[in-house]
């Protein structure tokens, strides 16, 4: 069920002072797939997201989305093109209600506030937040804040959704719930890239996985190939476990 290439990243690089956060990274995402992106802490996953979505200008390399070069566009234009991301640390509009939070996203495609509100209600139902619509976003639990991040992003009607550690800190039941939600988004035709530490989730969700270590891609393939790849095992567990 792999479609055409939707996102193509080519030779992306970013340096912060003495740290090469991302070096010469290339990968692509096909329409309708879930691409998992894993790697130890500091391997450049979030930096890659930030470069794709325009929060950091890359030092080198290109980002192409649906055939269009979007390298270096500001975040709001990237979102306008149809890429929306969530943040590793949820950034809700704390003092606003949940529905107002999501409306901020839906207003992008529906400038009329009444229409935007109706659309926001639909999105809230889809992520299971409908009963919390009138609550203040700052008072939500961790899982509900993650749901809200996803809901706001979905509100912008993206073609590609970038999820940055949506499952971090969730208990196993909540992880299962989040996985169901992400899988259902893919089934509705959305393309998703997930950065995740919860290995079980990435392995069972993803169609393909890209593994980063110290800013470079060390492996790419389907979940089975990745879990038996010696370079991946070395990056995660250290060289001495490789032969164990």
């Amino acid at each position, binding site marked *: 069920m792999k479609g055409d290439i939707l996102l193509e990243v080519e030779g992306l690089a970013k340096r912060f002072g003495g740290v090469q956060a991302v070096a010469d990274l290339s990968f692509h995402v096909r329409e309708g797939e879930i691409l998992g992106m894993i790697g130890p802490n500091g391997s450049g996953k979030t930096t890659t997201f930030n470069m794709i*979505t325009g*929060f950091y200008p890359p030092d080198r390399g290109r980002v192409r989305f649906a055939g269009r070069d979007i390298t270096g566009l500001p975040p709001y234009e990237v979102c306008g093109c149809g890429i929306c991301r969530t943040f590793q640390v949820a950034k809700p509009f704390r003092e*606003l209600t949940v529905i107002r939070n999501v409306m*901020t996203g839906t*207003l992008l495609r529906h400038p009329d506030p009444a229409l935007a509100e109706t659309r926001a209600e639909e999105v809230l139902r889809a992520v299971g937040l409908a009963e919390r619509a009138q609550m203040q976003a700052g008072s939500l639990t961790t899982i509900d804040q993650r749901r809200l991040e996803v809901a*706001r992003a979905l509100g912008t009607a993206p073609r590609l959704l970038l999820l940055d550690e949506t499952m971090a800190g969730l208990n196993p039941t909540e992880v299962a719930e989040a996985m169901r939600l992400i899988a259902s988004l893919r089934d509705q035709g959305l393309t998703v890239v997930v950065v995740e530490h919860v290995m079980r989730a990435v392995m069972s969700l993803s169609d393909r996985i890209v593994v980063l270590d110290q800013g470079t891609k060390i492996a790419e393939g389907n979940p089975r190939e990745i879990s038996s790849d010696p370079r991946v095992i070395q990056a995660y567990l250290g060289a001495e476990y490789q032969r164990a």
Partner: protein
Amino acid sequence: MKAAGSPEYYLPAGILLFLIVLPFLLPNPFYVHIVVMMAVFVVLGGAWNLIGGYGGQLSLGHAAFFGTGAYVSTLLVNAYGISPWITMWLGGLAALLLSLPVGIICFRLQGPYFAIATIGLAETLRLLVLHFRDITSGAQGLTVPFRGDAPWLLQFGSKIPYYYIALIMAVGVVLITRRMERARLGHYLVAIGQNQDAAEALGINSARAKARALALSAFVTGVAGVFYAQYTYVIHPDSVFGLGLSIQIALVAIVGGVGTTMGPVLGAVIMEFFIQSTQIIFAGQYPGLELMVYGGLLVAVILWRPRGVIPWFARLYQGLVARLPAAGGARA
């Protein structure tokens, strides 16, 4: 459903009716003058609130837009005899155009740059007006020649017509604020104020949203400047471009409650009441006293009412609505 007889309807209607008959209840023109100035500051505080409150961008130079409106209009009135009813819009437009480069440049950055730039803008304009004496008559200021009762020239023998014009402008600003608050721009500004990164990730061009709010704010402030020039007949660089005025405009919104429709209305009434009272009680014996009043009010608000007096008044008002007899079912 709310019935037409519920206090939710007749209370605001009653307040509006009171405001309409108010000038005839006041014992002398001086009191009318005070309420005219209150209305002017409702307009100014309300305009400031669009960018300073909803947009969260502290302007300490709104006098730049006020003075631009006042000077552009008065120069046009005096040079070409154009009616102030027309120059009112031109003054507002000039202030709007002035705001564009400020917004476009400053809102690319986050931080105190906008506040500093606005102070600089107002001071620069004040000095330019002082310098180009041939056109602006410098420190002497400009006067609007008195023509007596000439409605077409926005001049009236009595203060009462000015009061009604100011009242219409004040109500207009409240309506503009409500409209913006409910439109996409209002939603965007509030979201940007809460978390700019998250807002940008959702497709919001935060610089453009702020620049739009500033343009609207500058336009309204410029129109108010034209009205002020017509009302007082004389404008000086210090009175219309001064830092004191800029601060007073900001304080009106801050004391009342930023980011709310009615906050600047309350702020204007309270500030003007305190300032005029101290002037009446001490009758100019202690120069600079009104500055101490500004300072005292600001400290009091920041210490005890950081969201302004509006939440307190809102509760009062809601309580009143709930307690008043209703012909239909009043909503809580």
